[in-house]
């Protein structure tokens, strides 16, 4: 390799991917049980029918939470990008939207449990959806912003000169341009929602999400099948992330090429 940066880059990437690679390696080798002992281990490799049902219902709950939460976060993120497009509002809004990212998750979970109590909602999926929308809104916002920056200001001016109203500009100029970012943000938020156990655990009643079930399984009894379930969950998270990242990367490259031609 002639590129002097290649090996340094490769080493740093391996370091960043350590936990992920290690997890996959352990799941594939099926030896996780022997290495990790927190409270106790179990050698049962056969899942009971009750457990299978629990996992199936948890996967269903995760999808029931993840899909609407990701959709809502993506829609609200897009609206935020559009209404906060003026420089001053964009700067201030960008900082304010960091609040959910900066707040400690444990404290956030308790705050949402308090909100649920105040709103007199029953423990269940709706409070988790609300919390996930809140939590992943910044991610959707910044992904939309990444794409929105490629939209030239002249298009807005053209639309305004042609007499378009705000809603018409949003509908005919912004929405078609942001379609790709919308899909990418949806996928990324879905991945986050799928793997988020702390807030879901604070809010879930009898219907736990898959991440919560896996966390409980890992804390109580560790076995190869727990690791396999966790590994599958982990890989399921990576798929939408990779697809979303590829879509955004491709769109950004195309936008750059278009700009070059212009």
């Amino acid at each position, binding site marked *: 390799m002639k590129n002097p940066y290649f090996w340094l*880059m490769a080493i740093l990437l391996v370091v960043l991917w350590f936990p*992920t690679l290690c997890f996959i390696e352990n799941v594939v080798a099926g030896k996780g049980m022997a290495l990790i002992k927190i409270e106790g281990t179990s050698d049962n490799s056969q899942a009971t029918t009750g457990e299978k049902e629990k996992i199936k219902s948890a996967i269903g709950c995760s999808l029931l939470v993840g899909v609407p939460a990701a959709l809502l976060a993506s829609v609200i993120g897009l609206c935020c990008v559009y209404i906060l497009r003026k420089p001053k509002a964009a700067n201030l809004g960008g900082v304010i939207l960091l609040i959910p990212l900066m707040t*400690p998750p444990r404290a956030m979970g308790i705050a949402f449990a*308090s909100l649920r109590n105040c709103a007199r909602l029953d423990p269940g999926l709706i409070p988790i959806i609300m919390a996930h929308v809140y939590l992943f809104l910044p991610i959707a916002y910044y992904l939309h912003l990444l794409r929105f920056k490629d939209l030239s200001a002249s298009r807005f001016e053209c639309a305004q000169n042609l007499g378009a109203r705000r809603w018409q500009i949003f509908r005919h100029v912004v929405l078609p341009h942001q379609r790709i970012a919308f899909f990418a943000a949806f996928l990324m938020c879905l991945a986050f929602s799928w793997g988020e156990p702390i807030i879901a655990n604070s809010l879930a009643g009898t219907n736990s999400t898959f991440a919560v079930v896996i966390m409980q399984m890992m804390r109580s009894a560790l076995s190869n099948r727990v690791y396999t379930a966790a590994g599958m969950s982990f890989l399921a998270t990576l798929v939408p992330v990779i697809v979303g990242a590829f879509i955004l990367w491709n769109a950004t490259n195309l936008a750059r090429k278009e700009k070059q031609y212009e």
Partner: protein
Amino acid sequence: MKGGRTSLLYVWILLGILMLPVAAALIISAGAEGTTAQLAGGFWDRLLNRFSEAIQGGQTLEAVLTSLILGILCGGAALVPAALLAACLKLGFKRKRRAMLFWIAIAPLFASYHLKTYAMRMFFAQGGPLQMACQSIGFSVKPLVDTQFGVCLYLVLAAMPFATVIFFILFEGIADQTVLAARNLGAGELRLIKQLLMPVFRKALFTAFCFGFFFVFGDSLAAEVVGGGQPYVIGMWTKKFYERANIETGAAAALLQMLFTAALLMLMGWLLTKTTRDKEQQ
């Protein structure tokens, strides 16, 4: 002008919505439910009583100090590899490949954090991959599981992608033509780093540190899983009340943690603004 004001109004509405959980924690922590004898009095009295109950609940100062030290140490240590990674991306690769590698580098951020933490426990464990690899090259290493060093190491790794994102975005602000022109004029790699990347690095340093710091400060899973309950951090302190099903004191503890985080965030924002202003005046 009018449009600008409307946009700012939207910002305040957004802030109001984002503050809803905090307000709920405030209401619950000052709630009149509970068995404590101190509950007599108005809203503020009850709130203060809950706060003091949470603070006296045990090891508060230790938890705050440990979290602060961990945040400063690990958030700071993550800056070096993150800056190196971003510099490698900027100087070593063309735009298209760089963007792809960047996504590969930050993909672990999107993967489930609690699973990653368990994975790290396996990696550090007795007979785990780290120990086996060290043994194969002739070193004998004690397992890093249940040690504070292991927790720090993992937190540095976990905070690294946050700092990488900040450095990468700011390094992208340097035009590729500028790098190419500098190379054509005979600048070596060290000079490129020193004269092109370093000024941007200095600008980004504080922001990147803040991201890493707040992540480490609020985290408790690493200490629970990798450290086996050590060191005692602020997240564990908050969790303790909630696990006792004492929602009022739990909400007060969460509120205190959030207020402390907000105060730190504001202090850091003020420091950043002040430094930038001073430099502009100079």
